[in-house]
C-alpha cells in the first residue's frame, strides 16, 4: 500500500505516538464513510512531519485523532505508551491540555480576552496558579516577539501576530507535540514564511512538530512527509530537499 516506509534512525527510542491499523468511520444515515481505513505510523521526539493530501484524504481526521479530539473506531493509538483509544473525556482533555499544542488555520483565539489571557487559557485548565500562569504566558509571548502586544485583544492584532499568539498558547504548556492545521492558510506569503520560520526555530529547539497542509511549499519545510489518499497512507518519506526558511527574529524560544 505505502510505497515506502520511513524508519526512524534510532528505533530503540520509544515513539511519542504510535498508530496501528487505525480506522475511523462515520455513519451517515445508511451509508458508512471511511475517513481513515488503515493507518499505521510512529512519530518520534523532535521530528518535523507534514501530513499532506487533498481534501477528503483523511488528513484532518488523522490530525483530530492524533490531537485526541477524536478517537479511532478501531485500531490502537498509543500516546507516550498510553492507549488513547479507550480513554474517557476527562483523560482525553488532560492529554490535550498537557501534551498537545494546537495551532489552527483560523487561529481560534477567544475574541473577548487579551492575548495574554488567551495564552493563559490552557494553564487555567491545568490548574496552575494565577501568578505562575501570568509569568509563563508572559515569557512565551515575549519569546514569540509579542512582549508589547500582550494586553491587546485579537481584533487589535494582525494575522501574523494572531497566529503567533496561537503558537504561544500551544507552547505554554510545554507540550510533547505541536499540531498545526494549515497554519499559514489564512496568511499572506510573507507572514506565512515568518510563521514557518518560527516553527523551524521551535524544531531546532527540540520540539516535535506535525503540520497538516495541502500546500507543497509548506510541506517542503518538514523533514518527513506523509501523504494520505482515501483514508490510507500513500507515501511516508523523508524530505531530502528541505526548504529552510529564514528565521527573521532571533527568538529566545522555550
Amino acid at each position, binding site marked *: 500500500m505505502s510505497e515506502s516506509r520511513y524508519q526512524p534512525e534510532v528505533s530503540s527510542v520509544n515513539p511519542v505516538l504510535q498508530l496501528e491499523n487505525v480506522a475511523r468511520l462515520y455513519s451517515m444515515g445508511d451509508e458508512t464513510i471511511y475517513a481513515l481505513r488503515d493507518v499505521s505510523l510512529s512519530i518520534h521526539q523532535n521530528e518535523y512531519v507534514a501530513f499532506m493530501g487533498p481534501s477528503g484524504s483523511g488528513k484532518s481526521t488523522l490530525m*483530530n485523532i492524533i*490531537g485526541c*479530539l*477524536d478517537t479511532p473506531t478501531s485500531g490502537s493509538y498509543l500516546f507516550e505508551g498510553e492507549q488513547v483509544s479507550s480513554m474517557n*473525556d*476527562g483523560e482525553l*482533555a*488532560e492529554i*490535550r*491540555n*498537557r501534551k498537545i499544542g*494546537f495551532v*489552527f488555520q483560523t487561529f*481560534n*483565539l*477567544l475574541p*473577548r*480576552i487579551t492575548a495574554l489571557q488567551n495564552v493563559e*487559557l*490552557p494553564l*487555567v*485548565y*491545568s*490548574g496552575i*496558579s494565577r501568578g505562575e500562569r501570568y509569568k509563563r504566558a508572559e515569557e512565551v509571548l515575549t519569546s514569540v516577539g509579542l512582549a508589547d502586544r500582550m494586553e491587546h485583544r485579537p481584533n487589535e492584532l494582525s494575522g501574523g501576530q494572531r497566529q503567533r499568539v496561537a503558537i504561544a*498558547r500551544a507552547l505554554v*504548556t510545554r507540550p510533547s507535540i505541536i499540531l498545526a492545521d494549515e497554519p499559514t492558510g489564512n496568511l499572506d506569503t510573507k507572514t506565512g514564511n515568518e510563521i514557518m520560520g518560527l516553527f523551524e526555530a521551535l524544531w531546532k529547539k527540540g520540539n516535535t512538530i506535525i503540520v497538516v497542509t495541502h500546500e507543497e511549499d509548506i510541506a517542503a519545510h518538514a523533514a518527513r512527509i506523509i501523504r494520505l489518499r482515501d483514508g490510507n497512507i500513500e507515501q511516508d518519506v523523508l524530505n531530502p530537499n528541505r526548504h529552510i526558511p529564514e528565521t527573521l527574529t532571533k527568538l529566545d524560544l522555550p
Partner: protein
Amino acid sequence: MTRIVESIRPAFVALAANKMRAVLTTLGVVIGIFFVLLMGWVLNGLDSAFTQSFAFFGDDILYIDKFNWSGGEDWYAQRNRPKIDFRQYGMFKERMRGAEFVVPTIDRFSTNVRHENLQLQGSMIFGTTAEYIDMYSGITAEGRFFTETEAELGANVVVLGQKVNENLFPQGDALGKTLKIDGQPFTVIGVLPKRGTMLIDFVDNMSLIPIKRFFGLYGSRSSLTINVKAGGKERLDDVKYEAIGVMRSVRSLKPGDDDNFGINSQEMFSQFIDITRGVVWGIGLFMTGLAFLVGSIGIMNIMFVSVAERTREIGVRKAVGATQSRILLQFLFESIILSLIGAAIGLILTSTIAAFKDQIVSGVIALLSLVGLAEGDTTVNLSFLSSTIPLTQVVVAVVVAVIVGILAGIIPAFRAARLNPVEALRAE
C-alpha cells in the same frame, strides 16, 4: 474552589459582551424577585403590626363571651345562648381564684359622639370598671382613668381612645371638656395612648365609660364580656380550666351539658391576620411562580443562544484541555449570574418602594383625588411596614435566584459540555 472562580470569570466576560441582552433576559427574574420581596416585606409588616397591636392586650387574657369568636358552632345556636349579665360577672369574679384580674366589658356602636360642631359616627362605646386600666397597660396618655367610686356611681365621665380624641379635639385640649354621647353629656377625664395599628384600629376608635353608666344609657339587655387576666402566659391553661369550671357553675350547667359560653383568647385575633396572610401568600405565590416560570424560560432560551453563538469557543476551550465538567460549570455560572443580576435589580426596586412607601402612597392618593376617586386629605398609616427589606428576605431571594439560574441553565450547559470538539471547532 479555583475551578469555580475560573468558571465564573468567562461567564462575566460573556455577559459583559451583551449587557443589554443580559438585563432584558432577566426581566422575568426581576419581576419574580420583586414579588417575593414585596410579599415577604408585607407579611413581615403584618406580623409586626400584629405583635404591636396585641402587645397592648397582653397574651395572657381570656375573654369569656356569649359567642365563640372563632365561629365553630352554629352561630344561630350561639345566638340563643343566655346572655352574660352583670350579676353573673359578680359571681364569677367572687369564685375565680387563679386570675390576676377579672374585669367586665360591654360595648356597642354609638350613633353619635359629638363635641360642639365635630361629631363622630359609628365609634365604639365601651363600658367597664376601674380595674380595666390596671389590667391593660395601666397608663393613660393624658389625664386619668375613672375611679372605683366613679364606676360604682355610674358617673358621667369618659376616657377617650386616641382616634376619638384626634377627631373631636384636633387641638389636643380634650381634658375637662364635655362631649355628648348619643345625646348625654360626659366629661372627658382622660385620653388613652395609641394602641392599634392600621390593621386593628378599632381599639383607638372607642370611648370608655363606667359600666353602670353604660347600662343607664343603653339598658342592660346586651351580653357582656368577662376579661380574665391569667398573670403570665404559662398560667393561661390552668386559668382557662378553672374559668370554664367557674363559669359552668355560675351558669348552673349540669355535667352533661355543653358550655353555653365561649372562652376566647388573643389567638382568635390571629385568625384574622392568618386570612390576610393567606391572601397575600396566595397572590404572591401565584405571581412569583408565574414570573419565575417566564424568567427561567427566558434565561434558558438565551443560554441556548449563548451556547450556539459560542460553539467555536467551546471547541477551542476543549482543544486546550477543558473537560466537560468545566464547560458545564462555565455555562451554569453564566446562567446563575444572569439570574442573580435579575435578583439584584428586583431587590433595588423593592428597596426603593420600601424606602419611599409613604411618598408613593401619598402620590397615588394625590393622583386619585385629582380624578375624584379619593379625598385629598386621606392618609394611610403604613408604619407597620418597615422601610428596609429584611435581611432574611434578601437571603431567600438570592437562594431562589440561584435555584432558578441552575434550573434554567442546566440543559443548555449540558448541551455545551457534550459538544463534540471536532464539530465545535468547525462551527462558524
